[in-house]
């Protein structure tokens, strides 16, 4: 038998690569098609938002938070204003809280649609699921545009409430969406849930064990797919989430399929929350009395919400000036990437892409 001289190949996947969802880079060592080592490289989209925030007033930081997780930017607004409200001791009018919940859940649906769509795209389904999901997402973006005038960077929430009340056309359109959406989710299930190729590609691949998930501070669908029932909407209810009935879908295996499944189920429950929130929406003001130049008392506050990607936390330190002394962002996907190496080692190139897609990162949030 002739001895073949072989050596592992190092491939830089990214920063320009179709499936890195932005400018992420994986330095991967391959033995044939099998991954033997992987090192994530961050920072290609680092804009120093935490530093920028230190020289802007509390209100001026809100547009910056839009640029974090640009697929679900309204949740970033929410987490940030929640932290500042906690710091300054501001109570938000009830109508504003309801509208925040409505926006958050719409955001969750639109973000999960994109996450699942791109996951399928990464696995080679030639754009079809993505296109079907974009159809629903566009409808949601229309509604966001109606409320705040933008489709992607909303800058809608304000410290103490919201910048605008919803226009009268909003609720009928949202109602229609809520009625239609379950049907479309069923269609996605029909297209994908039992597809043998999808099952073969995702079941048992990239398994994140329950223990490791908790130990590595994973959050959001990644954590719940591993079988941990931890949703901040339930565990530490913010806004008015304690008034709604909904379930937190839990996976069992912690593989790619469960992450996909959890996201699809979460959309169903988000629709349910939307239904209840529309029904219970009170009338009244949407903005509390807040001075235009807010000077919160000296101190610090940490507020976290369940963003579509996991626990999004803002840690704000105030020194009683008009700008935050320090703003730290606990970005869910950044921390979810901790275990990326463990998930892909030993799998094939194609699996690495799928695992990466199932974590559903947004580079704006990872690199800040």
């Amino acid at each position, binding site marked *: 038998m002739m001895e073949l001289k072989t050596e592992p*190949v190092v*491939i830089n996947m990214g920063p320009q*690569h*179709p*499936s890195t969802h932005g400018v992420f880079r994986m330095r991967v060592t*391959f*033995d044939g*098609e*099998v*991954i*033997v080592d992987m090192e994530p490289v961050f920072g290609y989209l680092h804009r120093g938002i935490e530093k920028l925030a230190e020289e802007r007033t509390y209100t001026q930081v809100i547009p910056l938070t839009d640029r974090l997780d640009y697929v679900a930017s309204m949740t970033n607004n929410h987490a940030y204003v929640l932290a500042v409200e906690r710091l300054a001791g501001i109570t938000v009018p009830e109508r504003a809280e309801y509208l925040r919940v409505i926006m958050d859940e719409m955001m969750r649906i639109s973000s999960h649609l994109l996450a699942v769509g791109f996951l*399928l*795209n*990464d*696995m*080679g*389904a*030639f*754009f*079809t699921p993505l*296109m*079907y999901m974009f*159809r629903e997402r566009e409808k949601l973006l229309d509604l966001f545009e109606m409320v705040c005038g933008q489709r992607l960077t909303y800058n809608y929430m304000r410290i103490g409430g919201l910048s605008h009340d919803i226009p009268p056309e909003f609720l009928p359109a949202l109602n229609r969406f809520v009625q239609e959406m379950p049907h479309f989710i069923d269609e996605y299930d029909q*297209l994908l849930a039992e*597809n043998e*190729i*999808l099952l*073969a*590609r995702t079941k*048992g*691949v990239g398994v994140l064990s329950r223990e490791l998930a908790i130990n590595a501070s994973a959050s959001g669908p990644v954590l719940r797919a591993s079988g941990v029932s931890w949703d901040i909407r339930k565990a530490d209810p913010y806004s008015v989430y304690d008034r709604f009935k909904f379930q937190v879908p839990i996976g069992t295996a912690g593989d790619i399929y469960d992450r996909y499944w959890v996201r699809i189920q979460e959309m169903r429950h988000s629709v349910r929350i939307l239904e209840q929130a529309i029904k219970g929406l009170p009338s009244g003001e949407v903005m509390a009395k807040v001075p235009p130049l807010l000077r919160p008392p000296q101190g610090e506050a940490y507020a976290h919400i369940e963003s579509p990607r996991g626990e999004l936390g803002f840690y704000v330190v105030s020194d009683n000036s008009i700008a935050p002394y320090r703003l730290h962002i606990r970005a869910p996907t950044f921390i979810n990437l901790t275990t990326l190496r463990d998930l892909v*080692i*030993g*799998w*094939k*190139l*194609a*699996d690495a*892409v799928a695992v990466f897609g199932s974590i559903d990162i947004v580079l704006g949030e990872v690199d800040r």
Partner: protein
Amino acid sequence: MNGWDWIHWLIFVVVILGFALSMIIVFIWTERKVIGRFQLRRGPNRVGPMGVLQAFADFIKVLTKEDIVPAKADRWVHLLAPIVAFVPALLVLAVVPFRDGSILADLNIGILYVVAIGALGVVGIFMAGWGSNNKYSLISAMRTAAQVVSYEVPVVLSIVGVILITGSLSMVTIVHEQQVPFILLQPLGFLIFFLGTTAEINRSPFDLLEAESEIVAGFHIEYSGMKFALFYLGEYAHAVAASAVITTLFLSGWKGPVLPPVLWFLIKVGFVFWLFLWMRSTLPRLRVDQLMGFAWKFLLPLALFNVFLTGAEVLLWEEKMASWGNFPWPFLFLNLALAGGLIVLWSKFFRLGGGRVEV
């Protein structure tokens, strides 16, 4: 060899070239349009009515691009690869009958020729992958080589069923023998041949060599300008050739009522291509080990079963053929049932690919 032969060949070379190139353009347009409609889009509609001239616009764009050869590429291999990949697809069409008698060369081993030439394109792809001096394209080249070699086996075995029934290797005779399309008499053979060909011409869900989300563009990642266009055309030329071969073998070629034979042929080719598009727009891609597993563990055993069963059937019906009007009608239903039963049965034993590798 007389003068008429030369004229015949000259005409048919021109006809085949024209047919192939025009079909490629039609296919490019159809693919974009049909997949667009599958995805609730409109597809190209800017250049010409309904975007029919889109392919020409792309062609002009590609022609005016800079021709790049990577600094450390194997220059000659890099340059020759697109031609080597493109030409075999045209060669295959030489033995495909467009209608009775319309054929460049009615080889008596026509189907063997198709099998032999059809697999040559992979050499071009491998040359491209190797010569580009790019890691992605190298991975792609290795994948293709493995894929085509593996899928060639079940594909050839599934043809054997057809050959057993017709008793001839000539494409024209095969069409003549099809009183009903062989897709009905050989459902399993058709399925294996269709899936195997999909893999051989590298279309989704077996398009591992291009796998945009994994290895970016695979073997043609370093190609630009006319060389890229040749690959692009070559991909569609292979699709045209594969559709034509499937039409001839399993869909009774030019045969059909009312309409002229050439039109029937084109309709059937278009339908087969539409099947490719339907699969492409629905299915995710297989992983490389699952792809190999599918060929060796699923298609190959079924193809062997198919050869065995068809052989037995041919022996059985040999004497009674005359009383059935020269066609084994009862076996239509038997084969359909057998195919379903075999697929279900074999699915029970079949495992797709390996899992994690300890490193």
